[in-house]
């Protein structure tokens, strides 16, 4: 991949990838770090695929693996305040974001990845399976459970009746 193509690919995908990693980890600095690492790995692997959709799936899979590695490494620190809101965000937005991020952080990392990939990225089950390293058939069940857990959390917090 040459620099011009990389730049176009980066501009098209870095924003959504950053959002994904940020919602997964809850920390903008870690999201920055993992975003760059994902692109470094992506460039090092230099996948010989012409289709940008395939490259995007490859990138998200790499980012998911890096995020899971990060969770494994920081497992001992779990329990500390995870959500970090960036400076320069208005008070109301920050509060809302904080509440939503905290709610999302209560899910397991795999549930977060599942829900984000399915609901926001609108990925196919086969792509989610590839990104998470699970069987395609399992995605439906795992997604059902993740959705159920989120619904329970929302009910517990009084967000929905």
């Amino acid at each position, binding site marked *: 991949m040459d620099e011009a193509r990389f730049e176009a690919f*980066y501009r098209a995908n870095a924003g959504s990838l950053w*959002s994904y990693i940020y919602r997964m980890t809850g920390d903008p600095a870690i999201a*920055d770090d993992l975003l*760059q690492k994902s692109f470094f790995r992506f*460039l090092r692997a230099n996948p010989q695929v012409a289709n940008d959709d395939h490259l995007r799936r490859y990138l998200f899979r790499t980012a998911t693996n890096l995020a899971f590695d990060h969770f494994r490494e920081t497992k001992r620190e779990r329990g500390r305040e995870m959500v970090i809101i*960036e400076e320069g965000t208005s008070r109301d*937005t920050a509060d809302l974001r904080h509440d939503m991020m905290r709610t999302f952080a209560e899910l397991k990392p795999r549930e977060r990845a599942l829900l984000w990939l399915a*609901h926001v990225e609108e990925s196919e089950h086969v792509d989610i399976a590839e990104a998470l390293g699970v069987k395609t058939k399992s995605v439906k069940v795992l997604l059902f459970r993740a959705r159920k857990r*989120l619904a329970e959390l929302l009910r517990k917090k009084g967000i*929905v009746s």
Partner: protein
Amino acid sequence: MTDDVCRREADVRKGGWSDELRAHIDTCPDCSAAAWMVKFAAMPDREHMLPDPSVVWLKAQLLRNTAVAERVTRPMTTVQMSAYLVIAACWAAVMTWKWDVLSRWIHRLTPGAFVIGTSTDAATAQFSITFLVALVILASLTIMVALHTILAEE
């Protein structure tokens, strides 16, 4: 089990909810989760500045070069470590071989013996030519490996 997902979830994901759909969202757990995800995804977080692509590209190239350099120097490092181990083993072997003579010679190393020059005479008398040659070769090899390490690091 998984076929229980609400059919209206697709409408919820599309956005632009009608009053009737909002009422449904309030009562349906699947749709409430889907609606929450829609709101969560729409939450602005893009005031965050992303790294410039040219910087990421440059860093990736640097990392790639570092990885290549590490890969190239790996055999050299292995050879260097092996050389240190072999030399250490040789020193140990030589010391074990002539330990009796060496310990006697060390005990004779007194300031007085140095002054009258008997320590060197005694050493040359007790050490065989083979042993002295082995010592010289080993010392030279040790210096060579040490110099190689220092110069390679520089």
